[in-house]
């Protein structure tokens, strides 16, 4: 089957669907299914102990104190990390937006090249997972809260910059051009038109970043940054499941509160969804109320100040001679890079890609199954389907259950899920894929649910008015409207999964992450550099494939 031919005979969505299925099948083979032992049935007693402990968590006074303190640390890391990433994102975002260079600076070709270089450079900090940044800074600054804050700020700052620049570029330019053409200085015109216009979208995205930061702060506990992730890892290592669940519930609660607050604010702002991938930003319904949001600014400022005070990062370390000396040491120790392990890295790279494919398959299927019951409008208010017949209790129970499962899945960091999966699966890429899959299932399911809740009603109304039964409304109305967005989100999450394979590798799941763990514990910096480069290449490759598929799907829809 050649590609040009297929373009004529198969729709791109079908083609990519087949490619996806083939990739999943190959990944399963790579994971060793049907070839070798993957299930360790003897581990079920421990898994059962873990599950049973969920109904009687440790609620002793002492542990609750620890839990409270750890939760505050995690929250404070997230606040400080978000603060810096938004600052970085705001500055860098303006500088890598097309509109800034073309309209405000009125750049010539030469300058325009500069813009593209900045944009390309931002891809590097973004491609490296926050845990790797954390490990790097740990080697320079030691066990300081600064490590966690900066480890979140750098990759998240780069992502925020990318999204901010996209938002700025997608904002209508007519008012800006009108002002510039009437003789207003470009900078002033930018400040008075584009920025205020885009402001609410920028703010909405910042809240989403905060949700992500909470999860990142928990993951960073695993390298010793403290907080809930740290406590969870310690109690998991000493197999104290009752304590473990107390920390789980704390993380669950923290994530729940942040998600809820963030969603409420977003409704206030009139930005219906968390991240609007490939969607235009439509004028919202109730933006008249949005100035109320400014009342929250003093609270936000106080929150940031309190968080910095609580964790006390030692900023003097950034430029201290000691840090520079340690930095030089690492650079010297890593050079020249040791490429001797490169042939060994090829199969590991394949494993890593396979792990990310399996993870996203688990996440997408699970997310899809849970997303429909988790929406308010699908079964519950019968706005999507015809009037719901039967009692009203069942849909409410389904809604609550689905939402709790989704929240629990995304609240627990992927490496912790992977460690749990390691009870019943042999070390290898499968436990890693399960861990990543479960965590991302929680995130994807929620994103899917949002898509369903924001469904356009008129096409469905038309179907229902025509007398179509529920099944047909679903098949011909709901699915065609939601599927393209679902696929776009899935592909986007696949990119994230690829980056996250490294963190489950650190707890013993397979692939490059596993090699990285051995190299880290052997202080083999020259090989470490090569493994990280391999990671970068894979990340860019997956990003490129994902972008290509998304573009092809968008063109066909």
């Amino acid at each position, binding site marked *: 089957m050649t590609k040009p031919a297929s373009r004529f005979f198969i729709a791109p969505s079908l083609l990519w669907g087949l490619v996806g299925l083939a990739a999943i099948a190959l990944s399963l083979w790579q994971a060793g299914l049907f070839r070798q032992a993957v299930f360790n049935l*003897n581990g079920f*007693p421990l898994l059962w102990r873990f599950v049973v402990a969920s109904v009687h968590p440790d609620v002793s006074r002492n542990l609750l104190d620890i839990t409270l303190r750890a939760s505050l640390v995690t929250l404070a890391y997230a606040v400080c990390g978000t603060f810096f990433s938004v600052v970085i994102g705001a500055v860098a975002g303006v500088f890598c937006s097309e509109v800034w260079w073309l309209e405000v600076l009125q750049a010539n070709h030469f300058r325009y090249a500069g813009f593209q270089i900045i944009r390309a450079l931002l891809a590097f900090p973004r491609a490296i997972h926050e845990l790797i940044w954390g490990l790097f800074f*740990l080697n320079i600054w030691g066990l300081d809260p600064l490590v966690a804050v900066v480890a979140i700020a750098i990759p998240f700052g780069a992502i925020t910059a990318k999204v901010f620049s996209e938002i700025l570029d997608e904002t209508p330019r007519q008012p800006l051009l009108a002002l510039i053409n009437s003789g207003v200085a470009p900078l002033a015109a930018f400040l008075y038109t584009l920025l205020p216009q885009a402001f609410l979208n920028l703010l909405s995205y910042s809240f989403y970043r905060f949700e992500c930061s909470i999860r990142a702060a928990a993951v960073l506990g695993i390298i010793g940054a403290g907080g809930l992730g740290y406590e969870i890892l310690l109690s998991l290592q000493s197999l*104290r499941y009752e304590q473990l669940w107390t920390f789980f519930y704390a993380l669950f609660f923290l994530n729940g509160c942040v998600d809820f607050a963030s969603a409420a604010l977003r409704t206030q702002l009139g930005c219906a969804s968390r991240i609007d991938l490939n969607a235009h930003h439509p004028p919202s319904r109730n933006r008249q109320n949005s100035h109320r949001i400014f009342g929250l600014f003093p609270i936000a400022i106080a929150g940031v*100040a309190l968080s910095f005070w609580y964790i006390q990062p*030692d*900023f003097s370390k950034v430029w201290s001679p000691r840090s520079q000396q340690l930095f030089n040491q690492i650079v010297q120790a890593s050079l020249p890079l040791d490429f001797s392990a490169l042939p060994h890295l090829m199969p590991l790279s394949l494993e890593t890609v396979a792990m990310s494919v399996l993870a996203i398959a688990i996440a997408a299927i699970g997310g899809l199954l849970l997303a429909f019951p988790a929406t308010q409008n699908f079964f519950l208010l019968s706005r999507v389907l015809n009037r719901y017949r039967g009692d009203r209790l069942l849909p409410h129970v389904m809604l609550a259950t689905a939402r709790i499962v989704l929240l629990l899945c995304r609240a627990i960091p992927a490496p912790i899920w992977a460690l749990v999966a390691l009870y019943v699966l042999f*070390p290898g890429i499968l436990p890693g894929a399960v861990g990543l899959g479960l965590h991302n299932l929680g995130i994807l399911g929620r994103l899917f649910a949002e898509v369903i809740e924001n469904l356009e009603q008129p096409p469905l109304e038309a179907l229902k008015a025509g007398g179509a039964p529920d099944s047909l409304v679903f098949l011909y109305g709901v699915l065609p409207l939601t599927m393209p967005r679902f696929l776009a989100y899935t592909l986007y999450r696949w990119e994230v999964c690829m980056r996250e394979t490294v963190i489950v590798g650190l707890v013993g799941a397979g692939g490059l992450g596993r090699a990285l763990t051995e190299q880290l*514990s*052997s202080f083999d910096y020259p090989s470490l550099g090569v493994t990280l480069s391999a990671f970068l290449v894979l990340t860019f490759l997956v990003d490129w494939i994902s972008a290509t598929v998304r573009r092809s799907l968008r063109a066909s829809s």
Partner: protein
Amino acid sequence: MKKLLVSGFLLLSLLPLAACSNHSSPSSSANSAAQAKTFVTGAIPDQDPEKLQRLYGKLSSYLEQELGVAVSYQPVTDYTAAVTAFKVGDLDMVWFGGLTGVQARLQVPGAEALSQRDIDARFHSVLIANKNSALKPMRDAQELTNLKGRTFTFGSESSTSGRLMPQYFLQQAGVTLTDFKGQAGFSKNHDATIELVTAGTYDAGALNEQVWQKRLMEGKIDQSRVEVIWRSPEYYDYHWVINPSVKQRFGEDFPQKVQAALMKLDPTVPEQKEILELFGAEKFIATKNENYAQIEQVGREIGKIK
């Protein structure tokens, strides 16, 4: 008017934020000044982290009395982190395993192996097996080949008694990591290895003999389900390594003082007896860097030292 308000808010919101990021630096530098006067100890997290917390809490207060300086214990999440924190200078003295101690000294010129327990000069690993696995106690190293095709777990990646030496002895007997069923696991610490093998998650596992003996004495081991199948030859293991930077902060003879304080721990004094018991030692003895030449060589052979 409204647009002006919005941009005004943007500017206003940034100013106090910039101010508050400066606000925390004076207090944190005061913090680090206090830290300079504290002697920070650490340990590789080789056992149940809660047990370590209790043990090192007691040791810290003993050292505080003996040395006349503030002593604290800083826990870390894994073996590598202990080495890194020692290298960066966050930890002044660490209870390392054989391998991690060598790794740490190679990265910190002038670091010294100070002291160890009486048992550490003749340390052993044990292999344990779940009784349902039908693995039988072995008479000599040749029988280690019985482990081929079984599931197996080590402790931490950087553990001397839970990984390095067992892997070395297995390799000598012709058993490599690919000979196990599935992939070999890394439980992260010795207590976790006991739990996993007792529960049957793995047929067999390798761990530190002292931890095994201690848990046996405490009655924590279900002997109907797990037993020792092999005891390794002896080698040098755990030891205290001290950072040369303490000499500038606490005086040239500080390492000797610490060494003396450790060796003075007396089993006839009840509180000190408790510390020694928690360490599983009769007493502490002096050690030196040269004792770890064999560990370094094996470390290079297995690839854990470059």
